[in-house]
């Protein structure tokens, strides 16, 4: 499947989703997105880091320095309570949108 450009706003949802199962560092998040989208999305660090910092400043993510599986120092992100709520909201919104899109394309 060819790689797709990320729709505006999609990246935030993907990041929140990737962190739903536990805390991860930047590369881990990129890999997780790659995995859950079946390789459709490959997030570049140039988009990933600004998004992570923005979400953190909005209070949806929290970060702390820790040690990676390879004994590297890394900044680990996790969802905050507000972030979890936001994930719910965005998922619902996305489902409404995709349903509408699907209907539109079927008609």
């Amino acid at each position, binding site marked *: 499947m060819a790689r797709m450009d990320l729709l505006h706003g999609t990246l935030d949802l993907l990041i929140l989703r990737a962190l739903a199962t536990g805390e991860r560092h930047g590369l881990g998040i990129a890999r997780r997105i790659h995995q859950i989208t079946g390789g459709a999305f490959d997030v570049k*660090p*140039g988009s990933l*880091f600004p*998004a992570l910092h923005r979400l953190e400043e909005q209070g949806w993510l929290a970060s702390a320095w820790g040690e*990676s599986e*390879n004994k*590297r120092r*890394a900044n680990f992100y996790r969802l905050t309570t507000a972030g979890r709520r936001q994930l719910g909201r965005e998922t619902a919104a996305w489902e409404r949108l995709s349903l509408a899109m699907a209907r539109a394309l079927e008609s």
Partner: protein
Amino acid sequence: MLMSRWRAFLRRLLAPARAERDLDAEVRSYAAMLADELEATGASPEEAGRRARLALGGVEPIKESVRDVRAGAPLEQIWRDVTHAARGLSRSPGFAATAILTIGLGIGVNISIFSVIDTTFLKPLPYERPHELIRLGHGTTPRPEPGVSVELRWDEVAEWREAHDIFQGVEASAVVRTRIWRERGEPIVLGGFTPGMPALLGVTPIAGRVFTPAEVRDGSPVVMIAEELWARGFDRRPDAIGARMTLGDQRLTIIGVLPTTFRYGFRLPGGQPVAWSGLGGPLQPASTNTTVILIMRLRSGLSLESAHERAAVVAARMQQARPEKVPWMPVLMPLDRARHGVVSDLQMPMSMLLATAGLVLLVACVNVANLLLTRGASRGRELALRAALGASRARLIRLLLAEGVVVAALGGLAAVLFAAVTLEALVAFIPARMQVWMFQVGMPELDGRVLAFALSVTSVVALLSATWPAMSSARTALRTSIGGGHQVAGTTRERRRLSRVLQALQVGVAFLLATTAGLFATSFATLVTTDLGFDSRGLGVIGFSLPQGRYPSGESRQFAIARALDRVRATPGVVQAAIGSTPASSLYGDMVRPGGTEKIATLSVRFVGPGYFETAGIRLIAGRDFGPEDHPGSPSVAIIDDDGARRLFGDESPLGRRFSYTKAIPETTIIGVVAPVKAWNFTRPLNRVETYLPVSQGSPQTSFILRAEHNLAATLASVRASLEVHDPAIRVTSALAATEPYDTMETYTTPRFYLVLLSMFAVLALVTASVGLYGLLAHAVGQRRREIGVRVALGSTPRQVRSLVIREALAPVLAGIAAGGLAAWWTAGLIASLLYGIGPHDPRAFVAGAITLTVAAVFAAFVPLRRATGVDPIVALRAD
């Protein structure tokens, strides 16, 4: 959500280094882990690192994009740009110092001048609701001669007070005249006001109280003093209240001190009082003829128009009661505008000074713009590198703009410091009489208004001097980066053209200012070398009073004066003496129509005794002096000055011509013509005919002129003593040099003030423009080192190299002088009224300006020229 963003912003603001460190570590750990991954798939460590870096696409751009999304990112960026610019400036202290100093001086002079102008013209009066305050004036119909005002009299005050439908309050003030403060022996200007005046204005005494209506009515011996007298005479001691002071023959108790703000806005004829007593009581009896100033407060909400209509009705009623009065219309002048009337003479010179200061600032701006442009050129490589690394045009402009803004801001700061240090000196330099007019609402100071002005000027300066160079340099940098790091000829040429235009502008303004200063200098030189028409060396004047009680009749007075004159002549050290006043004083004119001409002349009449012209050194040109044959019974005679004679009779001889001076003396025959004399106000075109009449045919004059052999001051002292011993009834009221009016009326100091200030501005502009020219040439030589090296290698002589540089300098200088000359020619017409004795297009000033500019240009070009001819071809070619 908002809160968390703010917290993040604050955290970064408080620990910026830590935020940056964390960001860097995060991106680097990402790269490291990516490399780990690749290594795990079998790549060598070097290969893995390389591919990881490639995938990352550069650490810096990622960090930059993170910074861009952060809260307060624009603020942070500005701060980063500013600190970066400040660091850059601190690395080129020479450039920074020149630019900051130039702007600092440029803005500084503007702040100082603005502060003076603000205090003179703009600040509101320091009274309660000043817009309601009115000063009553009279306009007559038909209008009288210009400058003639019909004055208000005391008997009208009561009637205006009845007009409750127009005014909330009506109060009067008047000047009594100078009294001697006996305890100190110094003259004091005593004023008077009706007791409600301070309350009407909203001014309260700073110590003590105001006199009550009862005190004024009963003539209680009480007096109020001005703050300045309290400071000068009593060191601001509280026990001044209740102290006694004897003014003239009145022994008075001080009951209160009025703040300096009290007197402002209604300057009184006869001087600025420093003590007041109640007007209208026995202490200061106001006769129906006492001239008063009426200050009134309009009823709240009443418009000036309807107030005028109602006042016209009141005036018409007053008119019917006194049909003998000249018809007049009441003019309600807002007190604030009354102040402007007083200072309107200063509007032109002050606007000129502000405009000049503005031009100095313009030169400073242009100079800094040029410096920034040159700096942009020398930073070309750095900028090109930034552009190559992906900095956008906007980013580059911001970077360059930041530098200009930092320079302007520091310059503005320097300017405020400069003004703070120099303002007092500038104010002290303003002639004293001018200060009394100018600073009616207080002395100039660096208050909020002035600081706001400084801030806005600084912003404009930043905009003017930074924008253009920043845009030009950024454009060049982008093209250079595309051109592969080499200077692209076209853009360099474009920038050089721009900087030459700026240079021409600087030279032009400097030339304009130099020429203007030259005009003032020429005018001043003419002024001080003007022949006064009399010999002022050792000439003194003695004024005295003869008590009416002892010498009641005219004859007895004439006799006493003649005896006193004999006594003066006999005093050792006196060469000559005569009855009359100093020729330097200016007397009011009376309009007459001399017989045999159609012209109306203004005669200023001075009564003089025999020997007056000889004593004063006034040359008799034709006819004869007054003599014993001119006595009360003989036909009345006059001597007039040569200028006046020409004005009246042209080339015909005035001798034997007649005119009628007063009803009492119907026919006066001109018997002599003397050289014209310049009184203190000779710079103004008064067109008066100086007319001398013999005292023997007029009223007794209590003033002598005398010529001292050696020391005038000592001679005057001995004359004073000898007169008072000779006749104890005589009181000498003044003993001064005949030239004293030139000093007190500031005949020379006022134009000197303008001249010195203008010259300082011109020098400032000249130095700035020279520094600019130097910078331009030095840079041009630096840029063309390689070219010059090649030329020298190919056999160019130093002479040819020199002409190369001179051509570079000549174009902007010549263009500047031409443009500045045109501007100077045009603006000279505007200041013509401030010049004395020369036309506004006096060639001397223009030639002097051009020479000064050329000399300055040669000086500025000297070092770059030396450097150019000293270029060693080998070194020049190797450079770079």
